[in-house]
């Protein structure tokens, strides 16, 4: 209705976007820790990336629990007779828990210097880590009434954003290891490129969509949300780092650090605006 006397809230608050952000970084860092067992240049990241990944996973889990209106009932997610497997949240909860368990076991095996089991757990953990951005994407995709969210692009976009933000954080942990920095620069470039292409595609399909999509496009490209999405997320957080990393200065550590900061700021902005963008029009219905 154009006029209204009853108002509606956005069900999912910005806490979710912070969760998307930290869990994306956590899963990518675990992936880099896993790579250290197979690629020599990643070895300096083995422990540091894992520690940060673990800490962020705990933070992400706590954010999810605190955001529930009945936080203690998160235990219901552990009750097999309650779990509803048509919900991506149920899969996500199990994915997060098993990722936590594998991470703890991985830490234990690394402490014991058990290389074989550490490798196995690293691979298993990476598969579960990949599931985290995939399920967060599905969390949004399945809502058929939500413009921007309801696209098959969403899980892939979240994987690319996870790699991008994770590589940015990893570049701070990499120290002065040149080979590692060169690899992380490549990760940032390729994942930023993928994110950029997907965002342009997302904007295109949203702009040419139905009534809800068209209005969502208008909200996401103008005003405050437009500044956050286009200005901070796409230009400052995706396009600018690509340009910077391609420039000769971007091959130096300092340049990479600046690009990494921009990527992290943009990554948060993108997750926030995608989360909020899909909910704005509905609040007027």
């Amino acid at each position, binding site marked *: *209705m*154009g006029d209204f*006397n009853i108002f*509606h809230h956005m069900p*999912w608050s910005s806490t979710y976007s912070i969760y998307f952000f930290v869990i994306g970084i956590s899963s990518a860092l675990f992936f880099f820790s896993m790579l250290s067992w197979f690629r020599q240049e990643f070895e300096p990241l083995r422990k540091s990336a894992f520690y940060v990944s673990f800490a962020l996973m705990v933070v992400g889990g706590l954010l999810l629990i605190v955001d529930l209106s009945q936080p203690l009932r998160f235990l219901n997610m552990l009750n097999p007779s309650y779990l509803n497997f048509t919900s991506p949240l149920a899969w996500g*909860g199990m994915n997060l828990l098993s990722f936590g368990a594998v991470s703890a076991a991985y830490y234990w095996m690394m402490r014991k210097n058990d290389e074989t089991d550490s490798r196995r757990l690293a691979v298993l953990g990476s598969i579960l880590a990949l599931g985290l951005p995939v399920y967060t994407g599905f969390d949004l995709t399945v*809502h*058929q*009434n939500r413009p921007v969210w309801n696209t098959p692009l969403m899980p892939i976009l979240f994987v690319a954003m996870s790699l991008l933000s994770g590589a940015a954080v990893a570049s701070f942990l990499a120290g002065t290891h040149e080979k590692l920095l060169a690899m992380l620069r490549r990760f940032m470039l390729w994942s930023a490129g993928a994110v950029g292409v997907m965002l342009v595609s997302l904007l295109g399909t949203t702009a040419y969509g139905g009534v809800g999509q068209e209005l969502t496009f208008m909200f996401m490209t103008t005003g405050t949300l437009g500044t956050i999405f286009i200005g901070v997320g796409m230009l400052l957080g995706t396009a600018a780092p690509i340009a910077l990393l391609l420039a000769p200065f971007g091959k130096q550590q300092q340049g990479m650090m600046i690009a990494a900061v921009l990527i992290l700021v943009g990554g948060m902005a993108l997750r926030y605006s995608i989360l909020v963008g899909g909910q704005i*029009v509905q609040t007027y219905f």
Partner: protein
Amino acid sequence: MSELRTSSIETRGKPGLKRYAMVIDLRRCIGCDACMTACKAEFDVPLGVFRTWVPYKVVGVYPTVRKHFMPRLCNHCDDPPCVRSCPVGATYKVEDGGFVLQHYDRCIGCKACMASCPYNARFMLPKSRTYTDITHVVDKCTFCHHRVTQGLAPACVVTCIGRARIFGDINDPSSEVSKLVSTLPTQVLRPEEGTKPHVFYIGVDRNLSEPSRAIYNPLDVLEEDRRAFNKNHKG
């Protein structure tokens, strides 16, 4: 009707099962809000949230203007997205009757059901209430399940002064809702979402029932109301 069924949860047209539905005749609605009030009284619905509500739009050109009312409630969809999105099965559909209901003691408050509902029919109850201890979980219209199972009509239907709301079993060809839906042009909200809603409207104009460009540039006075509402009622 069986060819319409795409999911095993759907019960419209299934022999031996009731499938309750509501018809809202907008030609008869005078916007008195008695339905909202009856619902509030029936369920002690707190301030700021509604199981049923009556938004309006002013249509026409001054001085020939009128308010177009469109009562809203949970559409008790035959294929409800809220049921499939709830991670802990707190939202469920009653097979015989089609009521979409809520296990309050199981709800964790993740609001996935609210995000998945195309009709904004769900809301979060406040942290404290005067007469009931069901708090801070998601709530919604129940089609007055407790009344209907006792042979009574929903509170909003009973109280409607213009008889704009008609309730019954659409699987029964002799019911009034069944006859109205089969003989008059009716419209459901957002049929394209595939939810198969079971609230049918007579006389709804889709230009008025869909989000319009007006929401992008709303009247200042409405935005002030909206800001005040959001300030006082945090989700």
